[in-house]
């Protein structure tokens, strides 16, 4: 199905990827903290929490990919070329789509950086 221009453009899509990044960070932090404080204890393996963080990361990256893909489709509507700065509903949609795509890229990198902890920390 082809993306169409909506005259009542919403900004919500733009915020989704950074929001997923923030939620991933908070969930990972909370899971590791609660796991260490209530379940495994200090100096013990953190494997259960790491598995949960791995699942969060896969889900987050998938969500960011979907949002990025939606942004890309809006960016490619019609024949508009960058920088999408015409004062028309079409270019506004393309601009927001392109910004969504770029923010999704940034969010994907940041989420991956947050998940690097998986490779280095094996204990609380």
């Amino acid at each position, binding site marked *: 199905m082809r993306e169409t221009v909506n005259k009542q453009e919403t900004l919500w899509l733009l915020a989704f990827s950074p929001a997923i990044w923030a939620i991933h960070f908070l969930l990972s932090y909370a899971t590791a903290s609660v796991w260490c404080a209530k379940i495994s204890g200090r*100096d013990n393996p953190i494997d259960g929490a790491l598995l949960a963080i791995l699942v969060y990361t896969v889900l987050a990256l998938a969500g960011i990919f979907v949002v990025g893909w939606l942004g890309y489709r809006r960016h490619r509507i019609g024949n508009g070329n960058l920088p999408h700065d015409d004062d028309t509903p079409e270019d506004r949609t393309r601009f927001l789509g392109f910004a969504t795509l770029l923010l999704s890229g940034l969010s994907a990198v940041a989420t991956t*950086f947050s998940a*690097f*902890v998986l*490779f*280095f*920390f094996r*204990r609380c």
Partner: protein
Amino acid sequence: MRGCVALFTLTILSGCTGVQSALDPAGREAGTIARLFWWMTIGSMIVWLGVIVLLIYSVRTRAESFTRRKARIMIVGGGVVVPVVVLTVLLLYGLAPIPAMLAPAPPGSLKIAVSGEQWWWRVHYLPPGQAPIPSANEIRLPVGEPVEFHLESPDVIHSFWIPPLGGKMDMIPGRKTRLVLTPSRTGVFRGACAEYCGASHALMAFSVVVQQREEFAAWLSHQSQPAESPQELLAIQGAHLFLANGCSACHTIRGTAAAGVVGPDLTHVGSRLSLAAGILPNDPNAFERWIGQTHDLKPEVLMPAFHMLPPEDTRALAAYLEGLK
């Protein structure tokens, strides 16, 4: 102008060495941190130089000479690919040493409990299989051995930091934190509180002496012994005054009736390198000043000033305390 530049350079360079410099490492953990610092600094300089070169290039080049493809490569390559690659490398390099630095010391290692208190350090050596050995405001370590510090605080947040030996660790009321340090060379260093903790935060330091194993064992054995009785008349008089004036309500001198636990253990105070948590030299004159002008030297400290004592009593107390080797 030239003088200002010279002064600025000297000020910066003075941080590169000395008893409290993180850039002159004397321990395994500090070496890791110093290496990390230099690589991050070099990495930052390369990034900065690259950005400046690109800036000059973009300003001096005519816009028409950029093809669409070349411009895209510049934007995507310089704006996305290079920063992501550089940041990833620096992040991985920065994360890699952390697990080893957070790991507990091997079983059988020496453990030292340190409590940060406004504004001094309560120290207990916990040698395996022996009773804790109390001390204060000074830490001695055997060279080449990992030592595990157990850190806590009864009042406010302090932070335990010996820059030449390793990173700092907060001491948080109600929690126990841990720090492992492995000194790699002998010498005398200086530690300090690295978290603002009140009026005399800047006056909360301590000496750190790294010794050969045999020297350290002999020193620790001596520290575990009670205080020797004074022999000189002035010091004997000081010992009586110490009890008569209520000093013993707050201070312990093992082997005497003084068993207070509010302030530092003074059993071997005369053998320490400094007084009042690293702010005074250890000599009779400094003892006299500390007893009589306590709050001038360390504002808001719990210990009351004993300026009401006659000078001869203060002198006797100083002679007694200085003699507690």
